[in-house]
């Protein structure tokens, strides 16, 4: 933690490390935001429990480690399908019934889900922070004066790959085209014989299920606690707005920017000021550039 009171010059040598930390933090934000881009940016589904699925994934990974002795990179094989299943259930039971209802229905219903998930985890696992052991825990790679966790590097790489993959999927595959058609003009898609509900289900499962991939990847360098989700949810929404909604590249860029800003801000001011900066950026964007960094898309 940086000391207050030392001049900026004292902090300069610490900057490269902060930047590196920021890039990796940004990678995590980006990968969480990419899933939200799918559900909120493309499908326009408001899901306030998005981050909580990440927490669920983390706890499943934790259980995998403590009960089955599995390394996160191995339990990924279990966690991913389980989280995707949870996503499917959520869609069928909660989201689908209110998909055509006024927006506030989705907000309230997913808020309720968030409350349930977070507090169920609180009750089962208590508020204690847990670390999840992994073969790569504590493994650092060194670039000059900068130390980077190997696991974080992998997570970032996967983040970029996932972005590109989803972008390609939506743009270039038949299924992706159908999903986009269903989201853009539901009635026209229905008339063309598209099973819109199934497309939405698929896209939702991809968007939320991706968190089942993210969780084991960040487990080696992230503590797990019940409230880890809610912070990610709000930040992910901010990143999606920043990155111009529905734009995967935007989510990637936005995530990295927020990550760097938070890390560098944390360096300069200490404490929890870094969150304030993120929220301030969000409000500034809404004031001046609501269409986000890459613009274009209608809000």
């Amino acid at each position, binding site marked *: 933690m940086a000391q207050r009171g030392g001049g900026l010059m004292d902090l300069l040598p610490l900057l490269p490390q902060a930047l590196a930390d920021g890039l990796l933090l940004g990678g995590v934000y980006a990968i969480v935001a990419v899933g939200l881009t799918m559900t909120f940016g493309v499908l326009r589904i408001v899901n306030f429990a998005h981050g909580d699925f990440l927490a669920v994934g983390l706890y499943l990974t934790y259980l995998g480690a403590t009960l089955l002795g599995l390394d996160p990179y191995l339990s990924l094989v279990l966690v991913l399908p389980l989280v995707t299943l949870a996503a499917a259930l959520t869609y069928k039971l909660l989201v689908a*019934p209110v998909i055509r209802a006024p927006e506030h229905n989705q907000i309230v*219903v997913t808020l309720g889900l968030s409350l349930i998930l977070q507090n169920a985890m609180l009750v089962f696992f208590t508020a204690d922070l847990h670390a999840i052991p992994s073969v790569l825990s504590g493994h650092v790679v060194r670039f000059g004066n900068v130390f980077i966790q190997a696991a974080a590097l992998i997570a970032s790489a996967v983040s970029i790959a996932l972005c590109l993959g989803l972008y390609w999927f939506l743009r270039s595959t038949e299924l992706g085209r159908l999903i986009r058609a269903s989201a853009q003009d539901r009635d026209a898609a229905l008339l063309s014989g598209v099973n819109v509900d199934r497309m939405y289900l698929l896209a939702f499962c991809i968007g939320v299920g991706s968190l089942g991939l993210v969780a084991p990847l960040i487990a080696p360098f992230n503590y797990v606690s019940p409230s880890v989700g809610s912070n990610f949810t709000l930040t992910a929404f901010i990143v999606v707005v920043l990155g111009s909604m529905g734009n995967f590249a935007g989510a990637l860029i936005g995530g990295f920017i927020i990550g760097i800003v938070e890390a560098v801000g944390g360096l300069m001011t200490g404490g929890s000021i870094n*969150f304030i900066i993120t929220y301030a950026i969000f*409000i500034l964007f809404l004031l001046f550039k609501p269409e986000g960094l890459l613009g274009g898309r209608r809000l």
Partner: protein
Amino acid sequence: MRPMLLLGLATALLAGIAPLLSIYAQHIFVLVALYGAVALAWNILGGMAGQMSLGHALFVGAGAYVSTALYLKFAVSPWIGLVVAAMLGGLLGALMGYTVFRRKLSGVYFALVTLAVAEMALHIVSNVSFLGAANGLAIPSKPDFANFQFSSKLGFCYAALGVLAVVSVTILAIDRSRLGYVFLAIRENERSAAALGIDVVQGKVIAAAISGALAALVGPVYANYVLFIDPESVLGVPLSIDALLFSFVGGLGSLFGPLIGAVVLVPLTELLRSLLGGRLAGVHLIVYGVILILVMRLAPQGLWGLLSASMSRRRK
């Protein structure tokens, strides 16, 4: 004239009952009145004007902190603090509203902004030692009318009832005036509203300002009742959720549904907390989550909707 008369009678009735209650019941009375006031204030913006706020704790917290800080640091009476609180709450509501609404952004953006600003305020206050930082501010017990501290709980019952009455009178006044129709039109169909001569952005900003000002009134009363405030208790997400929850459970579209929601849920929560406490602290929130979902799916009109539906069925 009748609704105002009914309100006056109800207030008098409650004022008459208060002295007859046990100390614990009076405590519940105060809580129900204060939470009910916050929920009613939330409903002006969320239910009447149709704009959902997820950060109403901001207004309560702002009111609580400004009044308490003025009292502790500058010896300003909380009675004045109440007025300042309302002004601050109104200003915050108007600013936040204007920022989002003038861009014609959808409701989700407003929800996100309110959440973000409330969180921002929580983090800022947690880092400002003048405001007690994360440890909060404690108010020394000096029962005196001028200090807004009463020697018995009964005094606080009346204070809370007073705030509740102010909020209720405002709601009735809105309902009977053009503003009520402005909110109705905005909530139902913004395009139609505009075609009828209604400035939609202005209407939403006014709703946010009134809602914020009234919610802020609760802050100082709560602060002087509990004699302690900290960021988590007056700026935290649970309080924002309460405002929303009571309104939905009680009846979003109605004027006083949120109060019904508070009457039902506050005692229930206290009961759950006393039964479960400690380790199972999160259980009441799980119950809240389930209730939210059930209400949205099965009874979107809330308890008020169920009540009025059964009454009209009986009339037929």
